[in-house]
């Protein structure tokens, strides 16, 4: 799955996702990716977020919407992402998932749930402060 957030020079936010879903799923099963607020969310008055992982679990928590709401309240994007992961952890400590967050000033962050075999999350960032699209890594919590 890819989830993407783009914030323009004027602070306009757009987001999106695309996926072929979980392998061997039941026909008809849909995950979090196409659900607004779950797979991704964008609000030009606050920021944007996109989630990835076990959509059957994550979509129950609307993590992208929640992260944007945290950022609207002034929470730093990294902390917003972490708070979202923590909320899911309380109910599903072994869930597989990660989220990226960015606010309208261009600050960004990411967080993921640490489980065996998934201790770091890789994501891409492009901005004028980076010479080219750059891979970044965050340690899972």
């Amino acid at each position, binding site marked *: 799955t890819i989830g*993407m957030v783009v914030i*323009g020079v004027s602070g306009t936010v*757009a987001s999106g996702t695309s*996926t072929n879903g979980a392998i*061997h799923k039941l026909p*008809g099963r849909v995950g979090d990716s196409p659900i607004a607020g779950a797979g991704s969310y964008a609000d030009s008055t606050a920021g944007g977020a996109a989630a990835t992982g*076990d959509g059957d679990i994550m979509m129950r928590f609307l993590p992208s919407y929640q992260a944007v709401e945290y950022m609207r309240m002034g929470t730093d994007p990294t902390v917003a992402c972490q708070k979202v992961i923590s909320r899911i952890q309380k109910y599903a400590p072994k869930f597989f998932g990660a989220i990226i967050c960015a606010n309208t000033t261009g600050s960004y962050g990411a967080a993921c749930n640490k489980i065996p075999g998934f201790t770091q999350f890789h994501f*891409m960032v492009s901005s004028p402060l980076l010479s080219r699209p750059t891979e970044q890594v965050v340690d899972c919590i």
Partner: protein
Amino acid sequence: MAAGRGGGWQGVAVALLLLAALTPAGAASAAALPVVINTWAFRTAAETAWRVLESGGSELDAVEKGCSQCEIDQCDGSVGYGGSPDESGETTLDAMIMDGNTMEVGAVADLRRVKNAIGVARKVIEYTKHTLLVGESASLFAVRMGFPYEDLTTQKSLSLYSEWLNQNCQPNYWKNVVPDSSKSCGPYKRREEVTYREEHTSSQRSVHNHD
């Protein structure tokens, strides 16, 4: 009335706020935009989205083209055609796109036989008043919007499906059914005694199997 006579301190506060807006921190924030951020190390998607912005495209254009690139590249096997076959061996696609100015959303789910899922999602925004189209009807909409019907099956997805069948359909997502879904393939029927136990395990999900 008292507020109107606020005196000097409110004026100073306003002046400080205006000053704060002009500080280097504000400038730094401006320099940090635009920003493109995407999940996983999908570099070509990031490059495509960035190029769209550089060439004057909109933020929505950047998201659409960036994710479309991943669909073409079959990023990680988890995006686009030829990946993650379902229980019947078919690859289906889900995608969404959201405009943070208007809060419009276009999305498709369980899209069949159309490769450019996020392109179809964009058309849901542009040509309908709806938010989410699913299944065969979403595919029909896609064709009406000019997207070609294509087979999403590849040798890779066929191979993944065959291996799964040969492993007695393990793993799968059934529970409370007979025959025992942890040992056998279906077709399954519901077991009379239902166990309300949610196994919050992630054993079936990995960096190559995710939404």
